């Protein structure tokens, strides 16, 4: 199981919890399991998210491994200019 930090305005979908646990070993599993467990988060996932894993930002790499002790933070999709 990995712990995932959820940003403030999404917590309405996690019953107010700032951190949830899902069983995932990579980025794809993380997003799929989050959407399954918390359907209220799915619209945001569909709009696009980035995931910070141990301080580094990942956008699309499904098979990025996530260790049990990793710090995982859900973020809006990071874009630039």
């Amino acid at each position: 199981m990995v712990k995932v930090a959820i940003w403030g305005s999404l917590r309405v979908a996690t019953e107010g919890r700032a951190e949830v646990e899902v069983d995932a070993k990579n980025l794809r599993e993380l997003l799929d399991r989050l959407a399954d467990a918390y359907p209220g988060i799915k619209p945001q996932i569909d709009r696009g998210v980035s995931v910070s894993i141990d301080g580094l930002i990942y956008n699309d790499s499904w098979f990025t491994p996530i260790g049990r002790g990793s710090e995982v933070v859900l973020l809006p999709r990071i874009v630039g200019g």
Partner: protein
Amino acid sequence: MALDDKHEADGRVFKVVGTRPVRPDGIDKVTGRARFGADMSMPGMLVGWVLRSPHAHARIRSIDTSKAEALPGVKAVVTRKDFTAESDDVLDNCMAGAKALYDGHAVAAVAAVSAKVAKQALKLIAVDYEVLPHVTDVDEAMKLDAPVLHKDKTDETVPAGMSKNVIQRFEYGHGDVEAGFAEADEIVSRSFKTAATHQGYIEPHACVASMGPDGQADLWVCTQGHYMVRNVCAPMLGMDIGKLRVTASEIGGGFGGKTTVFLEPVALMLSRKSGRPVKMVMTREDVLRATGPTASTSIDVKIGMKKDGTITAGWAEMRYQGGAYPGSPVQFGAMAAFAPYNLKHVKTIGWDVVTNRPKQAAYRAPGAPMGAYVVESVIDELCGNLGLDRLSVRLKNASTEGAKASYGPRFGKIGLTATLEAAKAHPHYSAPLGPSQGRGISCGFWFNFGGDTSVSLSVNNDGTISLSEGNPDIGGSRASMTMMAAEELGIPYDSVRTIIADTSALGQNEVTDGSRVTFAVGLATIKAARDAITKMCSRAAKVWGIDEDAVIWEDGHAKPAGPNAGKFPPMSLAEIAAQASNTGGPIAGHHEVNAEGAGVSFATHMCDAEVDPETGAVKILRYTVFQDAGKAVHPAYVEGQFQGGAVQGIGWALNEEYIYGKDGRLQNPGFLDYRVPVASDLPMIDTVIIEVPNPGHPYGVRGVGETSIVPPLAAVANAVSAAAGVRLTELPMSPPRVLKAIDTARA
């Protein structure tokens, strides 16, 4: 794939990286040989022009193009009904559907044998508008009685009972801000406003589209991302993306404003309908009315501080309008505003709001400069109130490795403290100031990212290298890639030529944005060079009749790995290349990756300003940028990015704004009245490059192009506020605004 290479550069002595060779595009650009978007012509080419709405908000009841189509010399007319693809905001912005949503919104386009005929044809297009009430101010748009642009775009994050112009709500932070404020000795609450500004690129949008009767098309375009242009335009035209080949021209500035499409789908449709190539070039008025400025904002901020300078809590509510469609960068402002500070209690709320203005596009660290402006202004005021040194307070509270960012993750190795210490030790900080002069400091932050990248490196028969990459060069990337390839291969810089290949030549490449190119394309270039090296060593091994494992690469030569491998004189790259056909065929290295693991970049800016108390005019006296680049591949280009971001921020702070009249029309769509800084307005921008390596890149590179625009709004505002003796809370700080603030404070 996840980046798994550790930073390798510790202790490495670079021979090419870190030097300052002559840029490869310089001669072409100063002699006029460089070909920009408007510099392409094709046989039989037509000229395309766009008809734009004169109304800020109107229902389009009907469009009659019959008279325009009948005008001699007109070969095609296009309206939204020609686009049968599924509608989305980008398409609707390129060509209005049911409503015109801002002054300048495209409603039709013609292709004709000349600009004169095309413009005559536009006058013959009859558009029946039902003019609707409009709203251009972000706070006004949030009111329940505001005119509504879209009935159905508000998402699930917005509480019930709010205007339908409020699209999305964001919230970040941790801790308990009320508990934090309770600990403070001093609290400052302020409200701020910033105006919409444009990226100000000198080159207007331009393209030439040519579609054949077989449905295959070519597009020449100035863009930050020709793969994006291909991937977005092809579906709009109902095409497979492989049928559309896009070539990126030289680009005269982008800064984020060319990360989307405006003319391109229209040019392609005109070409399809006319059966001829169509060239479209925007005027400056078109650029300002109908491309993508950044958001205007209205922000409330509250920060608490103890007498010893510890920030106890930070809170901000940020309202950004991103034009007529969802997508203002408020979430990045809300995430980045407090990022430089290690806070136990922090909360930011962001609202994305639509108004009757052009659809926003990215502008260099989208959303972050406004957030830094408000936070850094209030920190400055708190320091003044408590009699504390502004750099010492920032150092005391600075985010460091392991600190929890205001937006959630813990930082890795970062360079903020190094920039602050460099600023404190710099002679600028202790230089004396005269009357009506003030000094301002600000920190700033940007995330950076990587993305899809494809690079191919070919070894030519004479030992020179042709390097193909897929990212338009907006910041010196061809020089940087050339340098990294030369470094890896151990050959002279002049032996490598880097080009930007078209979309048919390489795999997918993400747009040139996110300060990603030196990081991601550099990473791929290094790996492509190493791939080529592996192949060249293999060829040498064959020639020598030894195992591949027994060959190493050093200083541009394949060499036996040790005495047991055999006594063979080294083979140079050129020698191996000359024998390539004999030893197995052409030699090339390549690398394709979704590069992740980009490192963040922090900066500190210092500005001295003088205010004329009689006119309110501001003069920038001195400006110094301190920013972490990880590893500066070509220091002159890095310095250029620092300077460019600072200058754009100075213009944003002092002069630039979109001015809308009561009729909702843009009043200043030209460089005379939309005043960007020019060289004579400003002193030399001094730069100090800090290098705290990014562990995610073999040389430690961090992107730098965006962080440089984040601090200047606050650095300049703090300097002007100190010089004027009154806190300025609205940008731009144009002379009338400064004078009014001074007079109000005196009264």
